[in-house]
């Protein structure tokens, strides 16, 4: 007799916990592999999961086995040319017949252990240990979503929400209250009846006896008339709607597109912006991006134009900051939005302009921003803008940061530097 069972509907991730154990145990190695991968990947699949390799020797499970050497006999299939007594030269290297056992520490030949991370896991490792600074405003954003929470007991509601225990309890209470007087009378009458029945039938006050019996019957009848459950006994679980607090963030990407920014520099900036975007997306339910590019004048553009079109001309950074300030005023009230600014530039600015930038930042932008970060992508000396920004950073270390990037390899480390968890 056989039983045939369809198990396909059972949970399929029975081993998920073991997977988690593995990731937990090799956290450091995986993190390193992930950060290497982030730097190597092309921009479009920077956030995909995918193949990760960690050194095989780190994760070996050692067991005791025989080493090389000594006297070994082996039976093999597929003989074509050998006869008994033939001598064969030892194969060099590789297949393990090598004599002497002098393999020493060249046992590094262990292959890397490769496996696939899901996107979620990949991002977890990528942003592990990072946090957004100054997460203060988590403004309720009104009417979008509600959740139902228990709100006690009500007298009205849907039949499906009926609270049976409460309903029956209140029915019981009502019955007790309504029948109290009658039951007391009944008790007295019963006692009297018992007294009367003790007296032999001949001596009994027959009229009273009949009266008592009738009264008892009447009372019992009227008690039984009280309904067992009445509509106003019914109690319902009350569910009330509560708005779900939702947090929103807007990210301003500001990039210099003047002639001095070449494609490679823009590419670096783009990677940085993407990292920041992914990171914000994980922290906020709703993230918007505003792209602002500038040369001598600033303009809000869409993503494609932001990264691809080229313009020439001088550089006036303050124009972009000015525009950002206006957009904030128009569309993103700091009351409701968490505002993040990220500016990338090669450090060029028109001489007088840097001081204007400082004024705009300090007076209007920083007070409304959660965080403003500036990265300078250049191999050259810092210029006026950097110096000005440096002084701002000293004033506002909480909400302003600046970092210097030289090449693609710096992006991820710099990003981590900017957002690493600060131990309080």
């Amino acid at each position, binding site marked *: 007799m056989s039983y045939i069972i369809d*198990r396909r509907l059972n949970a399929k991730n029975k081993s998920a916990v073991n997977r988690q*154990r*593995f*990731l937990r145990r090799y956290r450091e190695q995986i993190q390193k592999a992930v950060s290497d991968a982030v730097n190597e990947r092309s921009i479009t699949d920077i956030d995909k999961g995918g193949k990760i390799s960690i050194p095989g020797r780190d994760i070996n499970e*050692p067991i*005791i086995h025989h080493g090389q050497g000594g006297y070994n006999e082996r039976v*093999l299939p597929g003989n074509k040319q050998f006869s008994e007594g033939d001598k064969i030269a030892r194969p060099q290297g590789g297949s393990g017949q090598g004599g002497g056992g002098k393999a020493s520490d060249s046992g590094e030949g262990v292959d890397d252990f490769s496996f696939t991370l899901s996107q979620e896991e990949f991002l977890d490792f990528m942003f592990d240990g990072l946090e957004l600074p100054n997460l203060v405003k988590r403004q309720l954003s009104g009417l979008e979503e509600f959740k139902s929470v228990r709100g006690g007991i009500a007298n009205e509601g849907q039949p499906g929400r009926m609270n049976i225990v409460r309903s029956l309890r209140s029915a019981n209470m009502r019955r007790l209250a309504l029948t109290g007087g009658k039951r007391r009378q009944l008790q007295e009458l019963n006692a009297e009846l018992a007294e009367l029945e003790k007296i032999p039938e001949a001596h009994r006050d027959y009229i009273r006896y009949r009266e008592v019996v009738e009264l008892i019957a009447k009372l019992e009848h009227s008690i039984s008339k009280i309904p067992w459950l009445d509509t106003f006994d019914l109690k319902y679980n009350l569910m009330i709607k509560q708005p779900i607090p939702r947090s929103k963030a807007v990210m301003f990407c500001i990039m210099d597109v003047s002639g001095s920014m070449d494609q490679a520099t823009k590419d670096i900036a783009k990677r940085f912006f993407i990292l920041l975007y992914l990171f914000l997306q994980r922290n906020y339910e709703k993230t918007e991006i505003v792209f602002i590019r500038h040369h001598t004048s600033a303009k809000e553009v869409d993503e494609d134009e932001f990264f691809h079109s080229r313009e020439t001309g001088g550089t006036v950074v303050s124009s972009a900051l000015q525009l950002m300030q206006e957009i904030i005023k128009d569309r993103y009230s700091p009351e409701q939005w968490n505002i993040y600014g990220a500016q990338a530039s090669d450090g060029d600015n028109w001489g007088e302009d840097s001081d204007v930038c400082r004024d705009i930042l300090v007076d209007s932008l920083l007070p409304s921003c959660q965080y403003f970060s500036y990265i300078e992508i250049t191999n050259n000396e810092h210029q006026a803008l950097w110096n000005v920004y440096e002084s701002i950073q000293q004033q506002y270390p909480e909400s302003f940061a600046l970092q210097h990037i030289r090449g693609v390899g710096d992006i991820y480390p710099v990003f981590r530097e900017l957002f690493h968890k600060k131990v309080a």
Partner: protein
Amino acid sequence: MKKPLFTTSEWNFDLIQDVDKVLGDLAAEFGLDTYPNQIEVISSEQMMDAYSSVGMPIGYSHWSYGKQLLSTEHSYKRGQMGLAYEIVINSNPCIAYLMEENTMTMQTLVIAHACYGHNSFFKGNYLFRTWTDASSIIDYLVFAKNYISKCEERYGISAVEDILDSCHALMNYGVDRYKRPYPISAQEEERRQSERAEYLQKHVNDLWRTIPKSATADAQKNTPRFPTEPQENILYFLEKNSPLLESWQREVIRIVRKIAQYFYPQRQTQVMNEGWATFWHYTLLNELHERGYVTDGFILEFLQSHTSVVAQPAYDSPYFSGINPYTLGFAMMSDIRRICENPTDEDRMWFPEIADSNWKETLQFAMKNFKDESFILQFLSPKVMRDLKLFSIVDNDEEDKIRVDAIHNERGFRKLRENLAGQYNLGNREPNIQVYNVEVRGDRSLTLYHYMHNRRPLGDSTPEVLKHLHRLWGFDVHLHSVDGNDIKQSFHCPQQSS
């Protein structure tokens, strides 16, 4: 000609039921005695889950299973490997997993192979009968899983993981080879566990009660060695005698030991087990075809996958990875049938007792009373050696070339057979390591001896394993490789500065 059971490759539950019924009747006709079957249809993800828990339906959590899962998943998703068509578990009822992706032909093949082949082997073979208890294994695994997760809650995941790592490193040395353990159920196991914990702790304390003092040479001579006889079950020895372990740690060792014991027969009967199952799916499915239950298309599809299962690449092929147990087992089983039915003169000379006997009874006898080593020694015929073109080489580090020791000719048959059997002797394959002595009155160090076989030394990972042993023992550990009376090589943990 009757109507075939099915003509398309789509399977459904009714069809599986019908096929199983027919195969069950046929198997009974051939005299196969089986546990009841529990056939479970699973998806490929579930198959990967099963892979990573060494094929068992439940198991405790450990990172190494996660590692296995990740690597299976990785290779499977990239198309570098296929998954097994089936997994079968030695339990009562016998659980067999069928993958939903299989065609009806494959499902039929798998049912014949697992539910009647392997199943009857589990029920009949003497090793499985003595060493495992099919009816209690699932129960025990449930107990083990719950116990380990309770330990994780109480002592932390890392603490439990450390002990498990160490136990896994020594898993092959946690097996009783001569004593038969008797099986108990999960409830009983749980009840006993607490008693055992108390008793053990008392017992261990007793052994270590004397305050260690520096032993004089004189005293050392007079005290008997502990253990009085060398112990080959290292995990058992540690469970009972390790001085510093807490009782839950001892229980964890015990769990690993029990599971190792459960798998011990499987490691010794791979060729026979697979050979038997392959032989029977081949025989049963051909019988199905002969009786008109299945179509010609079925038998062609079946033969195609059967052939790839029993393919044996030659030693110099890039696909060669040792002798394929399916090939060897299937060839030997089929050959036994041939010897019984159509013996040649050669067979009459080599196997006078089985030539012309009833093939079903002879096969049953072979299946029931042997393990790989003895099975090969007893039944490997010259014909099989010729067909597989076997040859034997000697790699001696005292000679500068490898010597061909025997080939498939009249002079070489016996030698070949002995060598091949030796290759399946676990005793030769695994280094023979035994607990030799404990300095009960001295520094509490533990000494193990590795008795060398054919002068073969221990592998590179030995120092790593010794670290695990050191963790379980808590004091110094020494391991000496001895050949005769000479110590050839010594390992110490912690490393000695000399």
